[in-house]
């Protein structure tokens, strides 16, 4: 019976771990997307370099600004040329023409406030216009929001299912010892005295299940991620070392609690003698 409980717990924990690691990676990707949604502030063509520096300094001092990079006309020209690649020679001879604007790329602490920040940047003299890619911001926000909600709901559902399964498996082992429990009650054993060994057994099963499922996830994570990365090249995924500890703690807690609660619930009915 213990082996059946152990296998069930291990499978549940493995599923739980996969879920946690999936949602951790979705959040990580969400952060990457958020950071790509920066503001871009374009300056008037006639501003010179010292003026541009001054504007840049002012931008940096704004509340919601996380970081900013100044791209002068020259740099913009070089970047443009680089983007054209082999066709870059199309731009030859245009070096001294003022047709590209200097701009400042701004990343934000909180992209939900990007509209306010946009207005603040627009007020700085020397700035002609500010792009904030509002559509993308909105989409990213709703995507990460949905992923967060979805993973919370998913984890709660998984927990309920897991406790239910564990409880039923442990119920079998309690049932096998029903006679013993009955005798203990009649000799005057307290509920706690009877319950404790079962709860410890549940915790042990949870802990064992944790060790096995955690090991499986640890060994398979890096190969799995590199396979996924071959398919979806545009995002980075969490490296193992930066999620292993958090995952381990969550799985260990989940496993032992599941075991303890499952045992306590299964035995409750048998104590009413």
């Amino acid at each position, binding site marked *: 019976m213990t082996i059946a409980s152990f296998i069930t717990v291990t499978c549940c924990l493995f599923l739980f771990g996969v879920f946690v690691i999936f949602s951790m990676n979705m959040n990580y990707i969400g952060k990457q997307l958020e950071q790509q949604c920066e503001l871009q502030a374009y300056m008037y063509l006639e501003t010179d370099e010292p003026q541009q520096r001054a504007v840049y300094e002012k931008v940096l001092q704004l509340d919601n600004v996380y970081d900013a990079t100044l791209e002068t006309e020259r740099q913009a020209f070089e970047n443009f040329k680089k983007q054209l690649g082999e066709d870059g020679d199309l731009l030859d001879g245009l070096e001294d023409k003022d047709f590209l604007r200097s701009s400042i790329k701004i990343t934000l602490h909180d992209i939900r406030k990007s509209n306010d920040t946009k207005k603040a940047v627009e007020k700085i003299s020397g700035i002609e216009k500010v792009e904030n890619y509002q559509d993308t911001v909105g989409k990213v926000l709703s995507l990460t929001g949905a992923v967060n909600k979805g993973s919370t709901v998913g984890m709660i559902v998984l927990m309920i299912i897991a406790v239910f399964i564990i409880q039923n498996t442990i119920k079998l082992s309690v049932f096998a010892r029903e006679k013993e429990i009955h*005798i203990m*009650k*009649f000799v005057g054993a307290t*509920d706690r005295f009877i319950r404790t060994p079962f709860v410890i057994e549940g915790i042990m099963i949870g802990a064992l299940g944790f060790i096995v499922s955690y090991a499986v996830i640890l060994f398979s994570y890096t190969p799995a991620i590199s396979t996924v990365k071959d398919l979806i090249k545009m995002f980075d995924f969490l490296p193992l070392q930066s999620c292993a500890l958090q995952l381990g703690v969550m799985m260990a807690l989940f496993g032992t609690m599941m075991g303890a609660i499952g045992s306590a619930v299964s035995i409750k009915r048998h104590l009413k003698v």
Partner: protein
Amino acid sequence: MIEFKEVTVVYDKDIVGLDNVSFKIEEGEFVFLVGKTGAGKSSAIKLLTGEIKPTSGDVIVDGIVVNRLKRRKIPYLRRAQGVVFQDFRLLPNKTVYENVAFAMEITGKKKKDIQRKVPKILSLVGLSERANNYPNEISGGEQQRVSIARALVNSPSLIIADEPTGNLDVETSAEVMNLFEEINKMGTTIVMVTHSEKIVNDMQKRVIQLENGVLVRDEENGVYNIGA
């Protein structure tokens, strides 16, 4: 020390277990509880151990109103009682010694006390030689003596026996009854449910008879005679 005060037990679907039953049992008495199946004997025993509560009335054991005890206090009530069942209820994976020691362990007794007390009790019930045997290696009579030893080991003031000879042959029953009588002589109150006419008639103890949940007879030195 035991008192039933106008005790009525009504189960689900209006089945009456006991109907306004009152009696007293003094300390050191030996009482047979007789009656047909369904007469209310089991209800009476379950009331004593706190397994069920009366619908009305009070059950008092050693000055404690059992039906008003909180659930978590019930184990302590049972430690002052020893219960012996028809089917012995021994743990099959424990030896004779361990089965008896177990009753002391759960009450949190010290190992030293257990090691001193268990052999004494086993010798009292004549099972010193069987200490290391498992229940399936000994006879029915011996198994019942183990369960009596287990009931005795915490020195209870009351022993409740529910058809203790129901699974034993006549000769073995007599041996077990002798044991109960000795225990009673040492001052322990004994309340015994039985269907054995021979035992009741041989022992000549107080007899309380129940019929359809009603107390119909309570006599000293009584006989079985529960009618057809």
